[in-house]
């Protein structure tokens, strides 16, 4: 069980409380600067809240040893990067350090590469990959550990439509297999279609949480994003057409 208890970070988050059980895909939504990345960083133990705390199975995340946190939580930051032109295979192998792996390192790297369709890129230097390919490598790196809690900050940013859907399906599969997967994202249609629950942040505060269609209401979207949304839902999926609210956000840019 993941529990956030009145998490506050000065000027970024204000008293966010919320709980989630394993086996779910949770979407963290909100406009730019709403506090999504800060919240994920707190959950990952990257940032200690000024007050309140994040607990995983009753253990405060920021007080876990780095080794314990490594076994329990995997984290994809918003802007991951690799500073050397090393191969994709090396990046995946380095991302598996400090883990007790049930299989040999090379075998695990191959498994992950197959899962993320990176097998033909394993020997390519990171510098020769496109932005979307690099993003997939970072995502594969972060999800390679099979930790109980997976946190991904904008996992589909920069991916083409095919891989956006592939990645969301993969994250959903991970959740079905018992992981708790929390992702920050901007695509409301993807969030509505794939996530089991959503939390919507607005100016550092929790505006709404619950089932996707309970959260993505006209009122909530107008307050959080300043948009009007028209939804189409059928058995195949969900689509949304956003339009700017009249009179709001004019002149923001």
């Amino acid at each position, binding site marked *: 069980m993941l529990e956030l208890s009145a998490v506050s970070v000065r000027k970024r988050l204000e008293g966010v409380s919320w709980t989630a059980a394993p086996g779910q895909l949770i979407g963290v939504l909100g406009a730019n600067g709403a506090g999504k990345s800060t919240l994920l*960083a707190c959950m*990952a133990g*990257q940032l200690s809240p000024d007050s309140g705390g994040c607990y995983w199975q009753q253990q405060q995340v920021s007080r876990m040893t*780095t*080794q314990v*946190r*490594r*076994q329990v*939580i*995997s*984290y*994809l*930051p918003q*802007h*991951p*990067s*690799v*500073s*050397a*032109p*090393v*191969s994709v295979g*090396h*990046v995946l192998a*380095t*991302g598996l*350090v*400090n*883990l007790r792996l049930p299989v040999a390192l090379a075998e695990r790297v191959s498994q992950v590469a197959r899962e993320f369709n990176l097998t033909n890129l394993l020997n390519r*230097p990171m*510098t*020769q990959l496109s932005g979307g390919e690099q993003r997939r490598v*970072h995502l594969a*790196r*972060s999800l390679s550990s099979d930790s109980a809690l997976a946190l991904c900050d904008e996992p589909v940013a920069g991916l083409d439509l095919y891989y956006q859907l592939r990645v969301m399906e993969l994250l959903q599969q991970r959740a079905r297999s018992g992981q708790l997967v929390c992702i920050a994202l901007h695509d409301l249609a993807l969030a509505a279609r794939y996530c089991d629950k959503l939390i919507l942040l607005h100016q550092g505060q929790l505006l709404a949480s619950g089932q996707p269609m309970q959260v993505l209401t006209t009122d909530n979207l107008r307050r959080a994003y300043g948009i009007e949304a028209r939804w189409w839902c059928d058995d195949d999926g969900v689509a949304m057409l956003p339009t700017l609210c009249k009179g709001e956000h004019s002149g923001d840019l």
Partner: protein
Amino acid sequence: MKFLLLSLLLLVIAVVYLGMGHSGWQGWPGSALQQDIVLQIRLPRLLLAMANGVALGLAGATLQIILRNPLAEPGITGVAGGAALATVLAMYTGWLLPVSWWLPLVGMFGGAVSLLLLWLIAGTNPSGTRIILGGVAIASFSGALIALVLNLAPNPFAFQEWSLWLMGSVANRGWPHLILMIPCLVIGALLLFSQRQFIGAHIFDPATLRSLGFNSGRGSLFVLFAVTLLVSASVITAGVVSFIGLLAPHAVRLLGIQRPYPLMVWSAVAGALLMAIIDMTIRLVPTAVELQLGVVAAFLGAPLLVFLLRRPYGDTHA
């Protein structure tokens, strides 16, 4: 294959270095005097040059990796400046003989004080930029203090002696210098070896690195201590030799070696090779006054770096 080729190259350089004198190729030493020249003068000098190359190459590669900055080199962290300042002060006040078991401790003390200052400037969560800017400030301040000490030198001979020492040289060194150097080199290299996974994970951005389960504070301290040990040992035995710490890792990268651990190992080998070649050049090029190592290193190193940079860079990997 690369290892075999480089080993062969090292062997050839060692044979030429030991066998060549100002009068040309002298071959295997026959007389006792020739044996003394080789065993007591050339061999320790060659080994000291190579040990310094290993220390500087290893320190340079490590700093470039952990600071994620290809411009990083031992001088830029201020450690070399701190070690040089402490040693010059010790010589100025006449506390120590040029070769004394206290000398490495004084040099290391200076390097460690610089490191401590850097740690205080950079804060508990240091960024690469902050470390480099802090290091530049410390290096500049140490440089100014060294200039002040030189300015206040009691006589022109002391001024000249210290100035030459600061330019770096392995001339007139013997086995005692090597015996000073080796323990520091071994301990520094072993410390870095023990932290190889932590250093290797610095290919990632800081946020990803923090999520990989390392105790970053302890790891960074171990790594910076090891670098201090290597650089201080180099400064106290050969003075300030610039450029090798920068050049060796770049030369290795351009050979296609990009992964952190192999980069460190090969930079150590490349450093040894470069220093041996540079010191051989100094020994064999006839000049009225023997040139200083730091001067020739920069003379040969700068064009070599420019030449290497003109080749495709960053697309190769291993």
